[in-house]
């Protein structure tokens, strides 16, 4: 609306280019002050808090604020808060812990944290293990026993961990030095047969007496294994090193010597119990 009475025509800056003039719509002065305040604020902030970078570190700020120190404090506070639960957990029988609702929550959450920190490197974040020597902890097959006490023993003292006196060893001979190539082939077919896999029945029949003579002392006559010796069950559907002929021949020829560290000393007694019960409740515990 053109308006002859309009008196609020804005001032002009006085700039004019080819007849085009520029209006001067001044900003409010408080806006400028707000800008100055932000500068002052920023300077004060850099004095109070860590800010200016140096060669080795930044200026620490006179408030002594540090996110790292905050985290350390929080961790300290949490472990102090959990001290009572830790003491209770160590005093309680492993079998009774899950009946105590507070402890059950504590070991499930705490055990998960311990597992992800120390165990996940080999057994995987989801505890599914890796075919090729790292057991799956979710299934119902246990190389060294799946009761709470047996799981605790394995975690606390490890497998084949020589610095721990209570560690356990499985002693499978390398049958490549004892059996001929043909015999190894036959016994592999027999193992495939009792494991319910595709196999050569004639060859397996040849393997049966070889198995009875050489393997049954640890794996049992029927091949169901013995957790006290760390001898795996060969009749189930779970194969730690895979179920192909190549992997099985290698096992028979050279034997397998899986290693797990002993965690006593590196983890507290409470942590050992937490991770034991966590692993036990993952779905396979006996």
């Amino acid at each position: 609306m053109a308006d002859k009475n309009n008196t609020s025509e804005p001032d002009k800056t006085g700039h004019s280019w080819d007849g085009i003039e520029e209006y001067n719509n001044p900003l409010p002065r408080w806006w400028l002050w707000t800008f100055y305040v932000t500068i002052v604020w920023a300077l004060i902030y850099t004095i109070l808090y860590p800010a200016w970078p140096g060669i080795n570190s930044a200026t620490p700020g006179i408030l002594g604020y540090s996110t790292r120190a905050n985290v350390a404090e929080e961790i300290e506070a949490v472990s102090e808060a959990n001290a009572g639960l830790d003491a209770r957990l160590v005093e309680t029988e492993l079998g009774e812990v899950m009946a105590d609702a507070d402890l059950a929550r504590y070991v499930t959450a705490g055990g998960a944290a311990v597992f992800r920190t120390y165990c996940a490197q080999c057994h995987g974040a989801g505890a599914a293990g890796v075919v090729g020597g790292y057991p799956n902890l979710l299934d119902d097959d246990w190389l060294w026993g799946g009761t709470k006490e047996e799981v605790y023993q394995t975690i606390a003292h490890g497998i084949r961990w020589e610095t721990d006196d209570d560690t356990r060893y499985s002693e499978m001979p390398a049958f490549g030095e004892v059996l001929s190539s043909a015999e190894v082939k036959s016994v592999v077919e027999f193992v495939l047969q009792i494991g319910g896999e595709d196999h050569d029945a004639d060859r397996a029949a040849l393997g049966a007496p070889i198995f009875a003579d050489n393997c049954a002392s640890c794996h049992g006559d029927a091949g169901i294994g013995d957790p006290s010796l760390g001898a795996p069950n060969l009749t189930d559907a779970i194969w730690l090193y895979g179920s192909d002929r190549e992997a099985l021949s290698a096992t028979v020829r050279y034997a397998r010597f899986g290693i797990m560290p002993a965690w006593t000393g590196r983890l507290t007694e409470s942590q050992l119990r937490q991770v034991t019960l966590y692993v036990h409740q993952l779905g396979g515990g006996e």
Partner: protein
Amino acid sequence: MTTSQPIPQEPPQLYAAREPIFPKRVSGKFRALKWWIMGVTLAIYYLTPWIRWDRGPNLPDQAVLVDLAGRRFYFFWIEIWPHEFYLVAGLLIMAGIGLFLFTAALGRVWCGYTCPQTVWTDLFILVERWIEGDRNARIRLWRSSYDLKKWRLRLTKWTAWLLIAIATGGAWVFYFADAPTLLVNLLTLEAPFVAYASIGVLTATTFVFGGFMREQVCIYMCPWPRIQAAMMDEETLTVSYREHRGEPRGKKHENRTGDCIDCMACVNVCPMGIDIRDGQQLECITCALCIDACDDIMDKIGKPRGLIDYLTLSDQVREEAGGAPRPIWQHILRLRTMIYTAIWAAIGVGLVVALFIRPEIDLTVAPERNPIFVTLSDGSIRNAYEVRLRNKHGDEREFRLSITSQDPLRIGLQGTPTLRVMVPADSSFNQRVYITARSDLEAASQSQSDVRIWVEDMTNGDRAHADTVFHGDSQ
């Protein structure tokens, strides 16, 4: 590029100080309406947290409560859980479309009548007028130097403002905790720091925005005035000056001048400090106080009311050509506003339906992905699921889980041999669930098969379900 003009003597100022505004008292129908709206909106704001609402023993008895720690929102008989936030999102969309609707029909009616900035500024101006007098007295006081009287009036005014500001900041925190308990805690200095901090910040903003910034907030800080221009059209009713009737303005001489006697009444009452006779402006919040002021003058000089009026641009053109303005309902009931109303109402109906078909029990299922399946020693395939069960009742309930699927799959719960689980009152409960397929079933070797997990409330037989998939060993 050449400068064709000499550089002026004084360089132009890039920053301008705020021009003080001294709105004059006015009475009339719009002023009366605004007093009512101010009373009602302020009452809603200050009093709502104090309304009690009985929900049973385990739940809070505050009618409107945002329980941030417990992650619940209570609104009278409605209780909203975090996963139902879409209801709040729907309300926000309705608020947005409502603004479209009102702006298309009535211009900046939100700004003029109900915006908190307008309401509190109006309240602060009211207090200012009580203490320091009306426009002329305030201008005199502003011009005078600081003597005892000025200090007394100023300090009285600032104290009154501060009390309102504290009450405003204080009322806010009561929406987030049990109001009577929090009030006692605040007074005995036992309330959490965040409560004091919130009150402090909101007190400061209320005091500064209502007392000193006022129209600066609308003009320089608020994005809404910039957006609203796109939502208004020539059929939008907005506060306008009937220029063809008023001009030329000046002392009243029959046949020589228009109806505007240039008394400045409209300018003197304006809280934004503008002259409505300059036409529609960014600064105008359409509070309509100039209409009241001008109608009063028109009555006194014996001219018809409505020199300043709610008017559309199209009517202005029509009237200038000698026609009559179209009736108001024709401006309001048109395609655009009806479309907005239809969308607004459709979302509203949708929300109400969503609210009423909400189940009292609920579950969500998250399949375990690492690993997606586990082979058991007998060759069967097992999948794990995190099932979150929600019990919205005020008492503990026993839930039973079951599945339906193509193949006869087995369901089992972690930690219990039964399929039943107790879920505490008004809470959600995580339960790990295992589903197992025998090795000879198709599901065991199929990469995916559909599974439906059911939950049944054993108290009243209510059922809910969630669909998920079972992963087999397809290699």
